[in-house]
């Protein structure tokens, strides 16, 4: 079946601009995660949705970052007033959440590479 998809695959923007990154999870997966991967680093957690609500947003670096999942499926990560330090690959993952999110396997999308000039 179809995996997690993310659009766009690449996004180049200028400092100070607003960007939106989209994630389509695997059909039927109720849990959705956003991570950020900087060059040479492992992914860092940003936010976790269970259904429509953000169950854990402790990883969002500041109030310029916001994410929504209004219908419990597609999610959008929004970054306001982008800075050069926001340049990274933004990864989305989803999981089924049958046994519980702690034991679930997260399946990752290919990522969106964001470059802020």
């Amino acid at each position, binding site marked *: 079946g179809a995996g997690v998809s993310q659009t766009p695959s690449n996004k180049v923007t200028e400092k100070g601009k607003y960007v939106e990154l989209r994630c389509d999870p695997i059909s039927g997966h109720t849990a959705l995660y956003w991570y950020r991967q900087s060059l040479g680093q*492992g992914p860092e957690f940003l936010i976790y949705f269970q259904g429509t609500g953000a*169950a854990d947003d402790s*990883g969002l670096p500041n109030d310029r970052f916001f994410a929504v999942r209004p219908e419990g499926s597609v999610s959008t990560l929004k970054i306001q007033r982008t800075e050069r330090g926001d340049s990274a690959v933004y990864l989305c993952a989803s*999981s089924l959440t049958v046994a519980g999110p702690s034991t*679930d396997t997260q399946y990752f999308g290919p990522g969106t590479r964001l470059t802020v000039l």
Partner: protein
Amino acid sequence: AQSVAQPEDQVNVAEGNPLTVKCTYSVSGNPYLFWYVQYPNRGLQFLLKYITGDNLVKGSYGFEAEFNKSQTSFHLKKPSALVSDSALYFCAVRDRRSGNTGKLIFGQGTTLQVKP
């Protein structure tokens, strides 16, 4: 604080030889442990996980990992490496006591190079 360490930036092995990619963790409680692999310009692919039970976990593509509680380690192994195994490998941990969240803490990654 929870953390994961992958002490080797790169591991080089010859095709056909056994490989080991090391991972150690630090969490307050008992962990759930995961290995993922990342190929260039692609997302992370799940390899295996330890939740409970047998300390030796078998996963995709012939990989396995052994949970060692006393050494707080979860090393990834394969008896016979293939050139196609060359990729970036990430170890990740989730604290069982972290509540109703699936947040993963990742190591910095280890590049595996398998030479013909």
